[in-house]
Structures are given as structure tokens and as C-alpha cells.
């Protein structure tokens, strides 16, 4: 069974020979290859080379592009600042009106977004169908928050709801354009990143009334390409789990604050789960024994019968020791 087959079966709640493992290796892979985050996020050859070396070293079942939430906002016109040690950050936000333009679907495919699309193309050419090739794409709420500022979006949620809804509608179509570009370049799946949909920021009512239908449209869009749709939420999103289970994505990737077995009780078999070893402390600082134990515990509790992909709760920090990543990947119990 190839990694891609393993992931596809797990996503459909079909038994697999072992639990698939799919850590988000981007930043760690760049560090391993001796290149800066900035270089990896600006050069598809460098990024693909780093990720392929990490695939060779760890043999995961899926590989994803670098996590860079500044790519779409930068394409939309926000000012960003580069750093050698982390992804670019938005240092000057746009006015909300900028996201009400009619050409977002075209504009969002500019700047560094093509770097990630080309990275997907290179990964797919090298890996074929042996390993799932996944692209990371900012979701509409997160793209809005990073482009115009999270505080602006939070205030609009209460004071300019219709304008925000209009903005999210346009950004959903723009995110679909990015997803299409990745899928047409050969991605087997697209992970939509919505860290701003975490419970503290977006309550369950706001999720249902403002974002859920748009996430569903994105999931359906990815499915039209026969792609695997993954939705990633950071932080503690327990209050929103019932809504997220109805997002129509194949996989819900969750961060370490959520107890995955409890999440399974809530979402049942409506959506496969992915995660969620702690990337803040356990993976970069824990002992290999602790990591193996935590990974095997998750794999045993959630893995039988499919519906689960072992991963970190977010992208692995660059400084994560290689032995720790190895322990995580090797803990894939049958």
C-alpha cells in the first residue's frame, strides 16, 4: 500500500495496514536542507528539494508545502516583511475595501502564490502517486484577517457584518482559484488553513452563520477535482466541533489543545481526524520516548478502522530534533 493509498483509505474510514502519518514538515525540512525559511518560500526548486529530502529521510505518507499565511495576503496587496528564521509577516494591512474588488480571483494568483503551485508540480513529478502531495491554502477568514488585520475583522463581525460577509464570499472564490491552481499542478489534496476560526475568535454561532457555508463550498470545489480536502484549525476549537464536522471536508486537522478521542465522540464518522501531537513543546523539546508513547497512544485510540491521520497539531518547528520526527513517523501502529 502506498502512502497515498493509505491516506485515501483512512479518509474514507476504510482499514489500512497501518495508521498513515503526515507531519507538516515544511519549516523543519528547510532547516534540515540548510536553507532559510525565506529562501524556501521564494524558490520552488529550493522548497521542493528540501521537502523531498525530508520525505526520503522520514518516509511519511503525505508531504505538504511550506505553511506560509502571508502568501495570499501579499498577493492581495498587503505589505510583508521577510525574516530568515520564520515566514514573512504582514506589516501593513489593507483597507477592507481592497478585498471587495472584483478581480481577487486573478490577483490572488500573483506574487509568491505561484512559488507554492510550482513546488507542488515539482513534488508530484518526483513522487508520482507514492506519497500524497498536499498544498496549504489560507481559508477565507484567515486570508481576510491577515490581509486587513484580525482586529479589523473581529470588529466587522459585530459592526459591519454584511460587508464582512461580502468580503468572505469574494475571498472564498479567490481561495477556490488557489486550490484549483494547486490541484491542476498535481496536488492530491488541499489543506485549507483557518487558524482564525478557533473558538476564542469565532464562536459557534458566527461559524455557522458566516463561515460554514463558504467552507462547504470550498470542500465541494476540491472534491470536484477528486482531491482530498483537509481543514486545519489552530488552538482550542472544541466549542465549534459540531459545526466543523459539517464542513464537508474529508479531514479535520486539529491542534494539541483539543483532545482527539473526545473530538471523535463529537464528530463521529462525519469527518476523519488528523493531528495532534504538541508542536510547541513535545515535538521540539520532548524525549524520543515520550513522543513515541504519545504517538502510539493516539494511533491506537483513533486509528483502527480508518478515519485518522497521525500528525502534529500544526507545522513542526524547524528546531525539532530529527530523532523526534523519526519516532513520530515510526509509531504508526497497525
Amino acid at each position, binding site marked *: 500500500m502506498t502512502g497515498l493509498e493509505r491516506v485515501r483509505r483512512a479518509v474514507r474510514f476504510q482499514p489500512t495496514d497501518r495508521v498513515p502519518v503526515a507531519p507538516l514538515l515544511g519549516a523543519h525540512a528547510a532547516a534540515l536542507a540548510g536553507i532559510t525559511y525565506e529562501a524556501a518560500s521564494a524558490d520552488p526548486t529550493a522548497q521542493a528539494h528540501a521537502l523531498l529530502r525530508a520525505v526520503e529521510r522520514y518516509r511519511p505518507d503525505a508531504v505538504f508545502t511550506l505553511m506560509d499565511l502571508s502568501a495570499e495576503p501579499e498577493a492581495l496587496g498587503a505589505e510583508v516583511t521577510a525574516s530568515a528564521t520564520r515566514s514573512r509577516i504582514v506589516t501593513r494591512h489593507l483597507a477592507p475595501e481592497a478585498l471587495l474588488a472584483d478581480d481577487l480571483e486573478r490577483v490572488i494568483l500573483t506574487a509568491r502564490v505561484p512559488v507554492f503551485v510550482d513546488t507542488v508540480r515539482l513534488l508530484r513529478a518526483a513522487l508520482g502517486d507514492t506519497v500524497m502531495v498536499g498544498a496549504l491554502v489560507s481559508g477565507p477568514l484567515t486570508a481576510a484577517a491577515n490581509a486587513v488585520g484580525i482586529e479589523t475583522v473581529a470588529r466587522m463581525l459585530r459592526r459591519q457584518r454584511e460587508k464582512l460577509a461580502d468580503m468572505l464570499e469574494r475571498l472564498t472564490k479567490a481561495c477556490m482559484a488557489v486550490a484549483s491552481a494547486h490541484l491542476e499542478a498535481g496536488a492530491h489534496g488541499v489543506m485549507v488553513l483557518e487558524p482564525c476560526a478557533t*473558538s476564542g475568535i469565532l464562536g459557534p454561532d458566527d461559524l455557522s452563520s458566516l463561515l460554514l457555508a463558504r467552507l462547504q463550498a470550498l470542500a465541494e470545489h476540491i472534491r470536484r477535482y477528486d482531491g482530498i480536502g483537509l481543514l486545519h484549525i489552530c488552538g482550542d476549537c472544541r466549542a465549534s466541533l459540531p459545526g466543523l464536522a459539517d464542513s464537508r471536508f474529508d479531514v479535520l486537522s486539529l491542534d494539541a489543545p483539543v483532545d482527539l478521542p473526545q473530538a471523535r465522540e463529537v464528530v463521529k464518522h462525519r469527518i476523519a481526524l488528523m493531528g495532534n501531537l504538541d508542536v510547541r513543546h513535545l515535538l521540539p523539546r520532548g524525549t524520543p520516548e515520550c513522543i513515541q508513547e504519545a504517538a502510539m497512544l493516539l494511533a491506537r485510540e483513533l486509528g483502527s478502522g480508518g478515519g485518522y491521520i497521525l500528525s502534529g497539531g500544526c507545522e513542526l518547528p524547524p528546531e525539532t530534533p530529527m530523532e523526534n520526527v523519526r519516532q513520530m513517523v515510526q509509531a504508526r501502529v497497525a
Partner: protein
Amino acid sequence: MSDRSTLTAALEAAVEAGDEAGAASAASRLLEIGAAPTIVTGALSRAMGRLGEQFHRLDIFVPDLLIAADAFEAAMAVVEPALRNSPRGSKGTIGIGVVEGDVHTLGKNLVRVMLAADGFEVHDLGRDVNAAAFVDAALERRADIIAMSALMTTTMDCMKNVVGLLVSRGLRGRVRVLVGGAPVTQAYAYEIGADGYGEDASEAVAAANRLMTMWQRPGADRS
């Protein structure tokens, strides 16, 4: 019900509803009828305290807290000139900022307002603040506490650098360190030697109060 109690109730309700104009108007009317500025700040503190508890229970969310903070600041702008004439006692002085390399100010801004509402004198040091700037500002403002926020794992080590700098400059006994932000945990706070940790805005306020109380204990180190 007296005008004063009606107006304080209206002020609290306006803050809780995120009604900036209503909060400013109620604060203004209270001062006009001769209420002491501390009556206004007391009402603001009660409203923000209740909101903090609701936020902690996930009964309300960041957008609700943010517009309430806007209303709080609108009312404070009205009462501040009067406060300068009859200064209220402060629970303590805090320099707060987002650590170097990080520009995510939402959490810091909410904590800043909650601390001010609870009676602390808060100096906002802004975003992308390096370790030396935190320590220099603490010295300049005679701060009791340095409060730091980080949203990214890649930036939170600045917190450790601040603790180290306080030690190397012989200031560790004079300034307490409070940390928070999405990637920060109690375990991390222990690891770097911080004195307090707040998982959210209301916990940050509780932690700041604990630090000030511990500090004022007889024999507590404040050299």
C-alpha cells in the same frame, strides 16, 4: 433608583454591548452630576470583569470583548482628565508589549484594557519589542511587572531573553514577569523562570493581581 445608579447601570450596559457612544455619554453624564471619577472607573471595572469571566467560559468571543474594550476606552477618554485632577490609587504599574519579531497585537491589546479596567497603570510598549526595550521601559516607568505576549513559537524565546536580561542587570528582584499568547503555556512560563502566566485576558489579570499580592507579603523580595 437615583440618577447616579441609573447612569452607572447604563454605563456598564453600554460597555458590555460594545456601545462606544453610549459608554462615553453615560460617563460624561455621571461626571456632570458630580459623581467622583472613581465611580465611573468602578463601573467600567465591573463591566470588564464580567466580560472577562464570560470570555473565559466561552460565553462570548474575541469580537465581543474587542468592541467592549473600545467602549471602555471611549468612556476612559471622558474620565481621564478628571482622574488627573484626583488621581486614583493604582494596583501596580505594568509595561506590556508583543515580543520581538511578532506583530500580532490583538491579545496584548485585550489584556492591556482588562488590566487597566482592573486598576493597573498600564504602559503599552507596542509590538516587535526587543528584550532590552522591555527592560529599559520597565526601569523608566518604574514598572512592577513586564507583561509579554507572543503568537508565534518562533518569537517566544524573546521572553526568556527578558528574564535573562533582568537577571544580568540585577533587576530580577524588582520586576516580575508575566507571559501569555497562543503558543505559551504554564510549562513554558516555568521553564523560562517567568513569575506568572495567563491563558487568556481574565487569567492574565488574575495572575497580575497574584503577583502584586505576593509581592506585598511581609518579607517578599522587592529589593
